[in-house]
């Protein structure tokens, strides 16, 4: 079982999510570049996964029975690095090396360099197919582990996502639980202006998925959704997490320009004040 103390304590998880946000902002400010908005919007979901829901062992990243996590929206690497570090996969001081030469913390996650990263991502649209393959392999081996996969909402414009949507439903991959970080923004603007996505929930439902629509910053709702997904048999689950890009820092929230911009030292100071 998990070596990370799994918790259903909402207050603890809320506090942990705050710590995750603080670490994300610090490492991004230190790096001087990187993806702020999408790391913050998915922070609550990833916190619940790593510190409550997932069975995993930082001392044995290759543990066969671990639950798997695929960050399909690989640009949220700072979020992944933070939850891995806080779980104990590597020393927290490594977070300061983000995006620097020689660091295992590449601009986008690299599984060859960093234990705990299941697979390299960064080119959007590919993660769900990989999650499906892992889910199939686990079923073949009679292993009960679950496979979690976070996608961006803009990311679901990629055709491969919908190919994977069909595969997961066709093969009844009920050990797959995907999450859309539905923050409504991509790079060139609001998703509804660039390439409309709605109705998102209805689309996944029509593709044969069990769909759960939640507030993606409500820890209790996130926990409840993961519990519900575990009980669903014969279908994959899609959690549509309604989120705010840049969540937790008032001056980043809902701002498209903070997709790929790191906080300046002055912004970091103000952001930390808000969070602490």
């Amino acid at each position, binding site marked *: 079982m998990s070596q990370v103390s799994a918790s259903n304590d909402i207050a603890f998880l809320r506090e942990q999510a705050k710590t995750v946000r603080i670490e994300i902002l610090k490492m991004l400010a230190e*790096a*001087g*570049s*990187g993806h702020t908005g999408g790391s913050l919007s998915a922070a609550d979901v990833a916190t619940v996964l790593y510190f409550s829901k997932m069975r995993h062992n930082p001392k044995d990243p290759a543990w066969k029975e671990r639950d798997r996590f695929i960050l399909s929206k*690989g640009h949220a690497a700072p979020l992944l690095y933070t939850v891995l570090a806080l779980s104990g996969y590597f020393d927290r001081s490594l977070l300061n090396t983000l*995006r*620097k*030469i*020689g*660091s295992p913390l*590449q*601009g*986008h996650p*690299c599984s060859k360099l960093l234990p705990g990263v299941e697979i*390299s*991502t*960064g*080119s*959007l*649209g590919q993660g769900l197919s990989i999650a499906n393959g892992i889910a199939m392999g686990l079923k073949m081996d009679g292993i009960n582990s679950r496979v979690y996969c976070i996608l961006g909402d*803009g*990311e679901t*414009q*990629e*055709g491969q996502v919908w190919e994977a949507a069909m595969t997961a439903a066709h093969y009844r991959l009920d050990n797959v639980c995907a999450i859309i970080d539905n923050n409504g923004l*991509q*790079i*060139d603007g609001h998703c509804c202006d*660039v*390439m409309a996505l709605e109705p998102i929930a209805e689309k996944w439902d029509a593709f044969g998925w069990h769909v759960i629509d939640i507030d993606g910053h409500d820890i209790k709702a996130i926990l409840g959704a993961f519990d519900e997904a575990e009980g669903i048999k014969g279908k994959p689950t899609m959690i549509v997490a309604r989120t705010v890009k840049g969540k937790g820092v008032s001056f980043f929230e809902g701002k498209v320009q903070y997709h790929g911009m790191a906080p300046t030292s002055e912004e970091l100071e103000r952001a930390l004040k808000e969070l602490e």
Partner: protein
Amino acid sequence: MGERIATRDAYGDALLELGKKRKEVVVLDADLSGSTKTAKFAKVFPERFYNIGISEQDLIGTASGLSLTGKLPFASTFAVFETGRAWEQIRQTISYSSLNVKLVATHSGITVAEDGASHQAIEDIALMRVLPNMTVIVPADGIETKQVIEAIADFYGPVYVRLGRSKVPVVMPDDYKFTIGKAYKFHIGKDANIIAAGIMVSVSLDAMEMLKKEGIDAGVINMPTVKPLDNDAVVEAAKASGLIVTAEEHSVIGGLGGAVCEFLAENYPVPIKRIGIKDTFGCSGPSDELMKLYELTADDIVRTVKQGLKR
């Protein structure tokens, strides 16, 4: 000289000018219009701009369809996604039927920098060069980029243009006139000749000056059109000196170095050294540090020339 312009910025300006002159020009992007600089065109000509969203395969197919109605589509995104994700759409539709689609990709090579290997296209020239009917162009600077955009608009057929993210020194003369398939000879050397493309042209010019100080007469040839290669210029350079060095911000496999080697091996064999990324992925870091790490600096060219000359 001394001025630095990113080729993607020159593209944004050139595309806007072209749009004013020719109303059949349409521009497509895949959620990166701010980065590829097609946003400049989009702002002035919203009715001729299509953001396809994060779906590069659809981007290429849509551009193909537009060309079938007589439009002149420019489709842009990052090089790794344009040539990688949509390679088969480019092959089956654009290249096979020789459609008049202009594929202009930015963020090529390791100078993409901190985003790391997933975003650094080091194989795009190879992927495009292998396709029949495809013309492949790698501009050296802002001046050349502007010229290239005008020239490919007047040329009927598929073209791939490789642009960069970072600012690069202006090296081409103000009165330079680009012609598809023609190299620009800065100097033909008697000891060695460096055939370069893209940002490696300015690096090669620095190396030329350094070598001169050591009494080595090395020439520099800018080879913007990697396909079709300027065979005459390559032979002239090979005849003038006993050594050819190629330089590109791309894998040593399949790019400019590959093209020059293939041609010379069959037609005028001389010793060749290839400077480029040595069959490995890039990584995150500042672009100038990456240029050092991957041995793409003037010092590296000087060292390679001397090795080739056994000096």
